[in-house]
């Protein structure tokens, strides 16, 4: 193989680099339009997060759902991770059997609401037997019964511009999931 730098080689390399750069720019534009860029696309780990997020979105674009299991697969042990919250508010809720609890929903919704446990129990119920894996590594299978989140989001009039549902826990922790577009 020749090690000489020929004019042809320089031109080919320059054209390839130019093509690659404009291809990347077009790809970024398209990815953004189809909602493939996550909020954490910047920073040290941004490239990895973006590739994972975009592949998940493309792969599950047809609305595929988690695997479901039969009743005999339900785990005998349903692990509880860590102690319950120690906050005073939580202790009060516990004492009154959560009758004074409300699910506060606000943000990009037409009707910000507070739904009681009785409200939620009055809504249509769906059931699923699914596998839940903690990021730590352990997992279990359980049957989940209750109102689907989609029903509640329609009820409060979630904006078409809303992209994520964020849950806040009692210990100041939070978690988010994507909304179907």
């Amino acid at each position: 193989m020749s090690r000489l730098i020929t004019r042809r080689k320089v031109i080919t390399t320059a054209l390839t680099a130019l093509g690659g750069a404009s291809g990347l720019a077009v790809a970024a534009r398209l990815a953004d339009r189809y909602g493939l860029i996550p909020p954490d696309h910047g920073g040290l780990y941004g490239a990895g997060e973006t590739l994972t997020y975009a592949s998940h979105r493309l792969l599950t674009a047809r609305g595929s759902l988690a695997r479901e299991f039969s009743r005999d697969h339900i785990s005998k042990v349903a692990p509880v991770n860590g102690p319950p919250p120690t906050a005073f508010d939580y202790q009060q809720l516990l004492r009154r059997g959560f009758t004074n609890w409300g699910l506060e929903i606000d943000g990009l919704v037409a009707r910000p609401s507070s739904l009681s446990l009785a409200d939620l129990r009055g809504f249509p119920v769906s059931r699923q037997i699914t596998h839940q894996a903690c990021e730590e590594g352990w997992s279990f299978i359980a049957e989940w019964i209750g109102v689907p989140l989609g029903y509640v989001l329609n009820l409060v009039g979630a904006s078409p511009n809303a992209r994520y549902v964020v849950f806040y826990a009692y210990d100041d922790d939070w978690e988010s999931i994507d909304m179907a577009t």
Partner: protein
Amino acid sequence: MRHSALVRATHWLTAASFIALVVSGVAILLAHPRLYWGETGAVGTPSLIDLPLPFMLTGQSGWGRYLHFLSAWIAVLTGTVYVLGGLRANHFGQDLFRPAHPAKYNVMQRITYAAVVFGLFPLMIWTGLAMSPAVTSVLPMLVTFMGGQQSARTVHFIVATVLVLFVVGHVAMVAFAGFRRHVGAMILGGEPSASEVQT
């Protein structure tokens, strides 16, 4: 025969991402150093392997997973370029499967390299994807074929251990055969030596 530029570049990208994968993999593992077989497993259920490691619940798995996924992407993309480039240049045919005489690598080396490239690395990708609920919602057989999500996690760990042992053996053999010369050949592409069997 010298290493091609493609082999040299992908070798070091793979080496760097592999180190990052091992470090971040250990960080993730330490949150729950127990391995199970089947779909589920947790403290209070029977385990397959109890690693003699402490449970570390001090939040090492956050950066661990970020780094694991980033380096997994680099390893997978690098591996794809390496395999496609290798097929195009007939690198695998010439050096692994139908070598010329005298062969560049001995038969044990050829079996080992072929197993790492076409067996163990694909198995790591497969078992990694089998742990992703998003991926298995579309391709459930990735996880059902493995016997469940926890089985996939266990196979992922065992194959990772075998790969670490391969790297230890690989580096030891390079050291044995002349560390500076062989590492230099993998960086710069020079001739390590005409007659001698390389690692």
